């Protein structure tokens, strides 16, 4: 049996994601130099957080589930860190 879910947070999160998407696209056309990447990545982080907390319902989950979700995030971090290290240090 799935437990009862209030639909309002889901709709709210969906609308929030759409708003953040619109913001990303809009800011992509504003010339901020290196700031464009920083802004886009920041918005992306907020979007991922919304999905994890609301859609994946991690806020209601047990510690073990949080450990596994955290491990996924940690591994993604490793991948981005080591991958970016190559891009940033190429001559």
């Amino acid at each position: 049996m799935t437990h009862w879910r209030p639909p309002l947070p889901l709709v709210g999160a969906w609308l929030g994601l759409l708003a953040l998407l619109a913001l990303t696209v809009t800011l992509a056309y504003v010339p901020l130099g290196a700031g464009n990447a920083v802004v886009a990545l920041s918005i992306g982080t907020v979007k991922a957080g919304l999905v994890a907390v609301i859609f994946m319902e991690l806020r209601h989950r047990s510690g073990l589930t949080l450990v596994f979700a955290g491990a996924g995030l940690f591994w993604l971090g490793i991948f981005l860190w080591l991958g970016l290290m190559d891009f940033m240090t190429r001559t």
Partner: protein
Amino acid sequence: MSEKSYLTTDYTLKSWFLTTDHKRIAILYFASLIFFFFIGGAAATVIRIELATPQGDIVSSDIYNRLFTMHGIIMVWFFLIPSIPNTLGNFIVPLMIGARDLAFPRLNLMSWYIFMLGGCTTLFAILAGGVDTGWTFYTPFSTLYSNSYVIVAAAGVFIAGFSSILTGLNFIVTIHRLRAPGLTWYRLPLFLWSLYATSVILVLATPVLAITLLLIAVERFFGVGIFDPRIGGDPLLFQHLFWFYSHPAVYIMILPGMGVINELISCFSRKQVFGYKFVAWCSLAIAAVGFLVWGHHMFVSGQSLIASLVFSFMSFIVAVPSAIKVFNWTATLHKGLLRFDAPMLYALGFIGLFTIGGLTGLFLACLAFDVHATDTYFVVAHFHYIMVGGMVTAYFGGLHYWWPKITGRLYSEYWARAAAVLIFFGFNLTFFPQFILGAEGMPRRYHVYPPEFQVWNVLSSGGAAILAVAYLMPLFYLGYSAFFGARAPANPWDAPGLEWQTSSPPPEHNFTTQPVVTRAPYQYDRDFHAEPQNA
């Protein structure tokens, strides 16, 4: 009257193809993997026959490209990765933890169907004309230039990836949730620790491969600049993404093999595994550090020197937990009551071959040596020692060890020992000369080569012929024993694991009463009174 075994509950095709019994699903995987092993092996046979002479006198260069690509794709994704987890793991995991089945039996069956769909898609690509990119699908060749069936083959691998993820999830949940009363983490057999670590890699790494293959399709079909620098892409990005999966994939292959070896060494030495906790945590350490070393595949790709140095350093670190395992196996053997049954011969072979493969891995982790050895036969020999010498030998060892449990029959010990020795001999004769070829500079993936390399290539091809015979032998004596072998007792090795506490073959729901665990694993009675096996 004892309960019917899982093999005799029902004989219809429907009962097999719609089964949710983990044991029957393991048999389905087993049959599929034999099929893929022989397809991959057939390609290897043609390759080795071709390389017996320096001229390209059997196949054209184009066909040769397709042959080694087919060999790589089939063997890596449709044999090595699923072999131990999906056959032995599927069969043994619930039995070892005292459960009735895996946590998600229907998901388990779905994994097999997805695996077969992926396999058939890849086979279609091969039959339709093949793929010539190599098993790595490197861009820009795979996205811009290759006119072979790249997308179909990549789609097959993409689909099979889902099967891996589902199996990994199933094992993780099963090991967390379905352990028998008293079976604490430090009482788990080490095979389960290694499968747990493998499952974590499967779940975390496989999605990256799936996304990467999808991106190839997006670039090939829609011209979106992902890997092509002319339209804003970066070809090195592909290698980063690909190896982020494919290096941990090596550990997907070898970790379950190490798990099997723990069981075998312990059983046939009649001793507890030396340093149980170290070995257990080394599995997780290998899984974790294995994610940090993918860049050592890219030392000559144009990646930055700083990145190469960091990856080189971390590649040395991953050798530490692997070495701890080897030392602990050796320490377990020390003063043990050794018995050289066929599974033990495979286990000892594994230790030798894995050690050679591991040590030559350290050579390749050195930046300077790697520049010389990249894309030579040295690399081919190194990874075959790990993936074939290690993994396949462990698979055969595990298969022999649990064969009486799986089939309820005993095999011919004489032929099994002969095959184990012949595999060890044939393997070394095939691949050791390739270290020399590589050190002398023979590149891989060429079907025409200078005549001075012929001696080593002839030795290698001769060894491959012996290896082929040795790999065929179990097909006959195990096949014979499955139907005509003597009946196996419930515990032919006198081993303490839970899987041996039920009948051979086990009943449909594994245990008639829920087992309770009261002691640590590997508490061997040193008085080994099992009857010698003579089927």
